[in-house]
Each structure stands twice: as C-alpha cells, then as structure tokens.
C-alpha cells in the first residue's frame, strides 16, 4: 500500500485512538480507563492583542486581533484569531458572518505575496521584483503623459489634463493612503480618477 507519510501518520494515531477507546469500552464502565473530562485549553492565552476595525462595510466594527508575535515590538506576528471588541460603542463585541471570519481573509490562499507580470499575449504571470515592476510602471506613465497630456484646449486655455491614464482608488484603504494617492494622482493631471463610491 503506497500511502504518504502524513496519511500513515494519521492511521497510526487513529489506530492508537481506536485501541484505547476500544479497551475502555470493553472495560464496561471503569472510569479510570477513560481520559478524564477536560475542556480545551484556552487558545488565546499569552497572545498579543491589537485593536483594529473591520475592513468590510461602513459600520466599522471594532475588532481585536490576537497574534503570536508582536508587530509593535518589531517581531514577526501571525494572527491566530479575530473577534469583536466589546468596548466598541457601535458593535459592542458583535460581528457579522464576514467579520467573524476576518482571520480567513487575512490568511486566504489567494492572498498575493509577490509582484507578478503578465506579458502581452501570455497565458501566465511571472514573478518580478518590486524594482522591476515599479520601474516599468514609472516609465510607462512618463511616456504616456509626455505624449498625451493636454496642456491647452482648443481655445488656448491651459488645462493640464491627462485622460489617457486612469486611476481607480480603493474602498478599504486608509485615509492616509487615500491622501497620498490623491496628491500623486492629481499632481500628474489625471482626471480619470474614481473610487468605489461611484458604484
């Protein structure tokens, strides 16, 4: 039987479990043969708490993220659990089915982890470095702006309008991201600028 190690490991453990419980059952009620009653160990003990708000709708429920490791202390931190913040005046600790599963959004298998590039006509992405990606974008922007910025309209009025490049801003980024984005996009003269509020 060709089974991988993990599967073998499972069978070994499961087999041991069956053996133990079968013995217990055969003993017809000898309490000492059974594992003593126990509740699961409380899983948040010694984790680090961080206050945040839910990333989904505009109720902006307060949440507490529990992690192994502390970002504030400069450590690598992995979020193990998220639940509502009972101190928060709006949600009082409650969360909806999306908010209650925020941890699985953070850890979604389809989270992006590295910049990727798709060439014209290609059927796959390929990994690139951040520098390669940003250099390519900056070059493309400059070339397009230099070629297509409308500096004056037909009446000769200065209009500094760049319509051949557009920018859609997010719906869940911070104000601080939005402000920095605003500055950069507007300084370039981009007018095809929008966010999720439109739809």
């Amino acid at each position: 039987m060709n089974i991988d190690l993990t599967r073998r490991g499972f069978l070994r453990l499961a087999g041991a479990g069956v053996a133990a419980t079968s013995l217990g059952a055969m003993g017809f009620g000898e309490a000492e043969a059974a594992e003593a009653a126990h509740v699961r160990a409380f899983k948040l003990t010694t984790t680090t708490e961080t206050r945040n708000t839910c990333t989904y709708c505009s109720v902006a429920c307060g949440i507490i993220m529990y992690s192994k490791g502390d970002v504030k202390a400069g450590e690598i931190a992995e979020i193990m659990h998220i639940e509502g913040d009972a101190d928060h005046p709006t949600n009082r600790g409650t969360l909806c089915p999306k908010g209650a599963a925020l941890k699985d959004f953070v850890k979604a298998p389809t989270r992006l982890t590295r910049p990727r590039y798709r060439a014209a006509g290609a059927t796959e992405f390929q990994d690139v470095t951040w520098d390669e990606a940003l250099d390519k974008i900056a070059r493309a922007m400059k070339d397009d702006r230099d070629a297509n910025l409308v500096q004056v309209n037909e009446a000769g009025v200065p209009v500094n309008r760049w319509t051949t490049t557009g920018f859609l801003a997010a719906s869940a980024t911070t104000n601080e991201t939005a402000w920095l984005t605003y500055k950069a996009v507007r300084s370039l003269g981009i007018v095809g600028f929008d966010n999720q509020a439109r739809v």
Partner: protein
Amino acid sequence: MSDTAPQPTTAAANPPVQPLESNLLPSDVVRISATPDVPQPTRQLTKVAKLIDVSKCIGCKACQSACVEWNDTHPEIGENIGSYENPHDLTPDMFTLMRFSEWENPATNELEWLIRKDGCMHCEDPGCLKACPAPGAIVQYSNGIVDFIHDNCIGCGYCVTGCPFDIPRISKVDHKSYKCTLCSDRVAVGQGPACAKACPTKAITFGTKDDMTALANERVEDLKSRGYENAGIYDPEGVGGTHVFYVLHHADKPSIYSNLAENPRISPIVEGWKGVTKTAGMAAMGVAAAGAVLMGLFTRNKVEPEEEEAAERLVQDREGI
C-alpha cells in the same frame, strides 16, 4: 444617565490573554457516559444557558462563522441546492446551522421567514450521554454543559440515536462524534460562547439560566404586544429543560421552525438501558461499534480528497504543528 457604555447583554466581553485558571474542572462533572456512581462534586456551578430569540434573528450566520473560527473546524465548500441553508445539515465541522423556513401564517395571511439556529440544546437530561456506551466520552458539568471528550469516543453513533434533536454528527475522518460544546473552553474562563459574542442583533444571549429565563419572559411580552399572541419559551420538560433554549413567536407550533421537536423525549429504549441490561447492551454495542470503526478505517479503498486534507490537519493538530 450612565458614565460608561452599558454592559452588553450577550455576556460578551473581551477574552483574556493572561493565563487563567479553568473554572470547569473534572471535579465539576456530574454525569459521565457509561459510568455509574460518579462522585458528587463538592461545589455546584451556577446553571448557565444560551437563549436564542428567534424573533430577533436575522439569519446572518454570524453564529456559524464564529463557531467555525473559534473551534477551528473546516467545513467544506458545498453547493447550493435551492435554499439559503449551507451546509445543508449539521456536520462534524459545522456545530450550528441556521435553518430557514418560509411559512404563510394562516391567521394573518402574512409570509413569515422563520429562521432558527439549530445545534446542541445541552439537555438537563441528555439522551446522548445516556445512550453512549463509551466510558467518559460524554460528560455533563454541574453548570449544565454537555461535552464530548473525543479521546474517549468510539464513533458508534449511539449518541445520535439517543439525541431527541438529531444533533451529533460522526466524522468520516477520525470516526468521532462532534457537536456544540457551548464553548466550554470559553465558559471555563468566564467568557460566553463564540456565537453569542458574535450575534449582531443579540438574538443569541448567554448568562445564567435564571437571567436568561427572565430575559426570555420580557421578550415574550414584547412579542405579545406586537400581536404574536402565542409567543412563548421553548424549554422542553421532556428532557428536563435545556441549557440552550428558544423564544418563539409561535410557541404553540414548534414544528413550523424547520421541524423543531414538539415534545422531545429520550427514546424509551435508551431510557430502558439500566443496570444489567445496560451492561449487556453495551457489551454488544461496544464490540459492534469498535468493529465498525475498524472496518470503516481499513476496508475502504478510496479516500476522498477532502478527507485526506482533513486527516492531514488532524495529524498536524495532534502533533502540535
């Protein structure tokens, strides 16, 4: 006038991260499956209860989501079979389930969408525990929580038969029985269950049974004032009352809520297993059950991918990876 935000009535509070002593100890167990003469505890914990007010429930499934997250289960991604219920039944990875029924009230001709959170009722007189042949696989604490101790479970399925509410589900992966624990690990450190903490509309509340009964009575009064003259509490006597109980707008017709049992009772057969009869019955069952488990494990020639995945997780969990 208050100076601080009112305390949440869900008994929800922020979980502690500092090490705490457990309040739910082996010595607080009052009943153990297949184990006569359990020593009586030296202390009596206050009886607890989870109240599910069906009239406030919006069917959002936050309880399902919070339950999965807290208990680290992994429900599979199924399909839609023409309803909002997903999964389509309780599973070893989904301890609680919103059940939806569209009911046209003949008295008013109004449509009512009755949404009931299903799951373990934590019976005062638990049929699962009475039916269980495996010593120590099911225990009841003096606060009313009925908990499964999986290390002792033989996966025979008698708890399913014994349950008047059809709640426990046997895992095809590890052949053990699973159901709601009332978040015994949270209650042990003074927290309410994860579902009650999450519930957006406070349709699920948690506290002492006395407090929850008082709250339930208030809710029944409110419903009566809104024209639900048969509003009432579902806390069935046939199983000695339950530690998860409902407020229903139509307490005279529990079955309209996705077949909630009208008069739940433990099967007389299970009740009949006493003394020598039980021991003999158990001997038969124990052997048969263990055999079934072994057969199940070793004679199957095909392992489903999701079972494989679940098995790997189980191994990882056990090995503490």
